[in-house]
């Protein structure tokens, strides 16, 4: 296994995530928290995030499906989701959540649905990318921690 290459790939993926705005400063904070005591901290948190957010999104899906137009409820769900997103630094997702909430405020159900589709996409994309990233890290060997290169 070409560890060096794998590590390079991981680094590159990571960089692209930041460059493309998928991740933001908060992710750095997470990485900083990772240390010997919690060597897989970032991955654990990200895993938690996706699990929890998936549940939230399913709830939103249901709420939207019912077509009841309970904007308050939708807003509450979305607020939770947004909070989650901010805590791992999922920047694009967060932006889209904000937009969704604006649609809720405007009681624009169409806007909400469109926005939610976008959220789902972003969610999925982010998940795949991060999944790949962590996989690379794992493959690259335990030496590689998700440390931040020079910022």
């Amino acid at each position, binding site marked *: 296994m070409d560890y060096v290459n794998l590590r390079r*790939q*991981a680094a*590159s*993926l990571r960089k692209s995530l930041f460059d493309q705005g998928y991740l933001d400063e*908060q992710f750095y*904070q*997470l990485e*900083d*928290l990772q240390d010997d005591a*919690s060597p897989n*901290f970032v991955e*654990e*948190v*990200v*895993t*938690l*995030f*996706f*699990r*929890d*957010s*998936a*549940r939230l*999104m*399913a*709830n939103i899906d*249901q709420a939207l499906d019912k077509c009841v137009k309970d904007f308050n409820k939708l807003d*509450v769900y979305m*607020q*939770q989701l*947004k*909070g*989650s997103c*901010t*805590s*791992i*630094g999922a920047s694009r997702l967060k932006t889209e959540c904000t937009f969704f909430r604006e649609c809720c405020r405007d009681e624009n159900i169409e806007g909400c649905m469109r926005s939610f*589709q976008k959220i*789902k*996409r972003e*969610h*999925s*994309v982010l*998940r*795949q*990318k991060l*999944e*790949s990233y*962590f*996989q*690379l890290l794992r493959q690259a060997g335990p030496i590689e921690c998700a440390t931040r290169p020079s910022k």
Partner: protein
Amino acid sequence: MDRGDVDEGQFPAGLRVLVVDDDVTVLRVLKTMLLQCRYEVTTCSQAATALSLLRESKDTYHLVLSDVHMPDMDGFKLLELVGLEMDLPVIMMSADARTNIVMKGIKHGACDYLIKPVRMEELKNIWQHVVRKKWTDNNRDLENSGSFEEGERTIPNNNANINNNNNNNNSNKRVAEDAEYASSVNDGAPDGSGGWKSSQKKKRCTVKEEEEGETESADPSSSKKPRVVWSVELHQQFVNAVNQLGIEKAVPKRILELMNVPGLTRENVASHLQKFRLYLKRLSGVTQHHPGLSNPFCGPVSANIKPGPLGRLDFETLVASGHLPPQALAVLEEELLTQNGSKQPIREIAFGQPLVKCGPPTSLTRQFPQSNLSNITMNPSLDMPPSFSSWPSNNDLAQIMQQQQQQQQQVVGSVGSVPQPSASLNVQPSCLVIPSSQQMNNFQLNDNTILANQSQQSQSQGSGFQTGSSTLVQSPMMLPSQSLSSLQGVNPASQNFQINQGSSIIASQPSISGNSSYTSVGPVIDYNNNLISTQPKNLRFGVGQIVDDGLKTMTAASNNNSFSMPGMMSGMMNSGVAVTGALVSDNNRQVRRNNLGFVGKGTCLPSRFAMDEIDSPTTLPNFSQIGGGDLVNPDNFGLDGQI
């Protein structure tokens, strides 16, 4: 708060923090961050759990970090409760950075408000709040023992002192600024030291005083004084002394002499007097006498008590027995809780003060029940003895006090069954106060129908607000505007209510919107109020803080924003739920816990609904196992594994 067990040399390491947030991701991240700060961290995802943890042992935690938006309980509610019950610093967190929400947090007493995502640097500083609070409290005590006559101290002054004392200038400055800002926000209050901040301060004072169950002489020069519990009798003595001297002339030294209570220090009296004066000021400021105003707060008991919300058998039993000790109430509530499950919106966290009616004294006399305590409870004709804590306008004070005194004696006497009713008043705001619709009705009797105001937000009602006594009393009740509306519909039974001046109204936040069905609770509450009455600490019960919505409503109605708040506060003070006190004792702890009823945004009792897990059928498997895009069309940008 006792940090004795924290290694001083390592401080702030070892600081014990409780984090409450419904988001597990956030909890995980915060926990790790806090651990890195070398704090000791406990996390919980439900407010109810957090409260139980906090209640189990007051000294376990130094600081609470809480999310604002939580499903089982409003973060602000938790904030208030923690502040009232445990007097711990609480820091709010939210992704919501809107100024009005942040403001709300500050007004509810948050030490700080962090915007998510919370950064490590911010967490590193949270220990300052713990220290600052402790310093402020201690200094206030010291200052209180000083030049006391004026009876008021503005927060900024205190903060200035803290600034000098504390080596943490940045934080202090911030606090001072906050205080000034807050004061200026409340500049409607006549005394300028204003609304919530004064109450906040008072609240802190009171809480502190309540904490220990002992009254003992303290070394005036020590920075840590044993807390004095202002029990019913003690307060009664205090009031008597004040009356004797005349409120204008009452000075701590003379009051102390008159009271002749061994172990009580001049400082204790001084700080108590300060609160009392503030209270009176509020009352007199708010009160616009309505000649026709009978006790707005009345005794809950009325012939029309319906088991309604209580629905219950227990209630009836209680009524039948004509005797409802606070414990019974607690039990009752618990039962309600268990049985009704989600139907307890009625439950409010009782913040203790018996509602004091601040009305024109004239009616007071008339109202004072001659009957003994037993009437308090379920006796329809019961005139609740005026709550001790009712401090009507000064000139009427003596009169009222007399009567109250009598009542108090009786009340106290009969509450014997309650465990240490007067002794351990750690008034736990967690007592549920069940606003009895009857009580609400009572309000309606008055011209002030403040209640009516609430629900309808009618402008005319609003004026009721401003009319002193009723206003005050009402306020606590008022808070939950929604319940008010239901109250509006309250049956005419209320008409029959005797509104006792002294009766304390347990103001709890009426049910969560729309649930104001409980009538029967009233009497019980009243009982408790009398029991507990007049704990100055009740003052702190976030009257104004309790129901934010209510407050807003009230203020809107009354067109007197700044005023309302103080008014509310004082009202709240009175409306205390004596229940709180009663429930405070350990015997009732469980009950109390179960009785958490928060008038949140329609939240029900958290303990019932707390969802321990986030699991749901829809939970997806671990993300790492998930293939791409199971949630949505693989409209991915084909980045599978792409590097």
